[in-house]
């Protein structure tokens, strides 16, 4: 396909990845038109605070805005907010919008993110929440309070953060997780066990190896859940945090390859002149030699930068080869991780002590160090390990003779 002169760039998605992509276009000197389309009405806002400062009420919702109104205005970007993109036509170079309008583009960046999976058993029941949007967080915040009974379905990072924030507000929290150990598939059994115990110690009723089979309701309002072990847990509200699905339905039939995300090459390109960034993008990360789709806040911004640059400079593209990073704040404990932990084959304790709840562990895949995770340790400690992951260090070179756990 021949390359077009870039005069009009459309960014679909107005959260971190889309906003940073638009900013990067301007910073790199692009003087044509930039349109950012977002399906939410709010100005671009940040999502990590939703399960923490917004849910707790520590922040007013304006504090989660990613940029001030002045900074947004100075960008010279046209925002089309509150309207979803419904179709992409690669041949006519157009994006169709839900309000009937069509946007022509010469370059396109797709940053439509993900949406929460829902519990089929909860269709049409009020008091069943998810946590993705500002409105979601405000709706649950409205309900939470001392002795309020909350069931959190799914003990991943989102579910455990909501559990921690809700406990701090005095709510009675039950955390339901199908796996025998929370977070174990990604972080390993020992780390998952420590984090699960942290919640038990703070009064969360942690139910593992069981799943929700039914949401109990009275007159259309949730009253509790029934679990696969036969027990019933009463609840005033239920928060469902069982993972996400990429928002790619609008791209079906467009000709782009979709496979749990928009499939991209190592430059974040999905087609000539079409790039993807953030939670929705599945790309080949040459640093780890594998394709990945990363739902981390840091990746959204980093890939937004990379996609915008490569769109503007297709003759000198740079591979997008980040070391994924995520953090989680639960109670007064900070969890931080670098690397690609999924599919690890060994976990080794390299600092601290599990029993004290302060430790740093390393992850091996094949003969390589692929990740590190710290819990309750000084944040700067982990940075030295980032370098070792970034230089594709061999496991034994980086660790000596580690203590496998």
């Amino acid at each position, binding site marked *: 396909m021949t390359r077009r002169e870039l005069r009009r760039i459309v960014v679909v998605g107005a959260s971190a990845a889309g906003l*940073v992509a638009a*900013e*990067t276009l301007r*910073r790199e000197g692009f003087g044509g038109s930039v349109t950012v389309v977002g399906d939410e009405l709010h100005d671009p806002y*940040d999502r*990590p605070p939703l399960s923490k400062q917004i849910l707790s009420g520590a922040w007013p919702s304006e*504090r989660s805005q*990613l*940029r001030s109104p002045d*900074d947004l205005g100075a960008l010279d970007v046209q925002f089309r907010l509150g309207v979803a993109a419904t179709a992409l036509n690669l041949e006519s170079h157009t994006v169709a919008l839900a309000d009937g309008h069509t946007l022509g583009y010469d370059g396109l960046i797709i940053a439509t993110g993900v949406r929460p999976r829902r519990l089929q058993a909860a269709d049409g029941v009020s008091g069943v929440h998810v946590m993705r949007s500002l409105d979601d967080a405000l709706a649950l915040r409205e309900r939470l309070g001392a002795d309020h009974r909350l069931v959190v379905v799914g003990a991943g990072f989102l579910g455990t953060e909501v559990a921690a924030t809700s406990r701090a507000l005095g709510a009675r929290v039950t955390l339901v997780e199908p796996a025998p150990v929370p977070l174990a598939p990604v972080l390993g059994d020992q780390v998952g066990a420590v984090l699960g115990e942290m919640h038990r110690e703070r009064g969360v009723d942690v139910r593992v190896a069981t799943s929700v089979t039914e949401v109990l309701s009275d007159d259309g309002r949730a009253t509790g859940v029934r679990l696969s072990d036969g027990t019933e847990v009463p609840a005033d509200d239920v928060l469902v945090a069982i993972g996400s699905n990429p928002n790619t339905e609008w791209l079906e039939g467009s000709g782009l390859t979709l496979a749990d995300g928009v499939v991209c090459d190592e430059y974040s390109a999905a087609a000539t002149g079409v790039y993807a960034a953030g939670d929705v993008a599945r790309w080949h990360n040459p640093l780890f030699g594998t394709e990945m789709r990363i739902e981390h*806040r*840091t990746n959204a*911004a*980093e890939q*937004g*930068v990379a996609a915008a640059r490569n769109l503007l400079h297709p003759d000198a593209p740079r591979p997008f080869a980040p070391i994924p*990073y995520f*953090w989680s*704040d639960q109670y007064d404990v*900070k969890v*931080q991780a670098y690397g690609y932990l999924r599919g690890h084959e060994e976990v080794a304790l390299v600092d601290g002590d599990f029993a004290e709840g302060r430790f740093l562990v390393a992850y091996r895949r094949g003969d390589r160090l692929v990740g590190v995770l710290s819990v309750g340790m*000084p*944040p*700067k400690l982990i*940075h030295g390990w*980032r370098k070792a992951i970034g230089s594709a260090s061999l496991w034994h070179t980086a660790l000596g003779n580690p203590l496998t756990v």
Partner: protein
Amino acid sequence: MRVEVDAPKCVTSGQCVMIAPDVFDQDDTGIVEILDEHPAPEKRAAVEEAAAVCPAAAIRLREE
């Protein structure tokens, strides 16, 4: 150019320190500290990058 940080927003990721170590540092608890509030023009690209990728949107540049 002046660099401003909203320290209470900082999530201690340290991304800024890795991108612009002459301009940013972290205290013992990981919270961002500014080493150079008025970075030289040749550091602009790095500081802008740090502001762009800060996962807490806690870094801002002001023109003077």
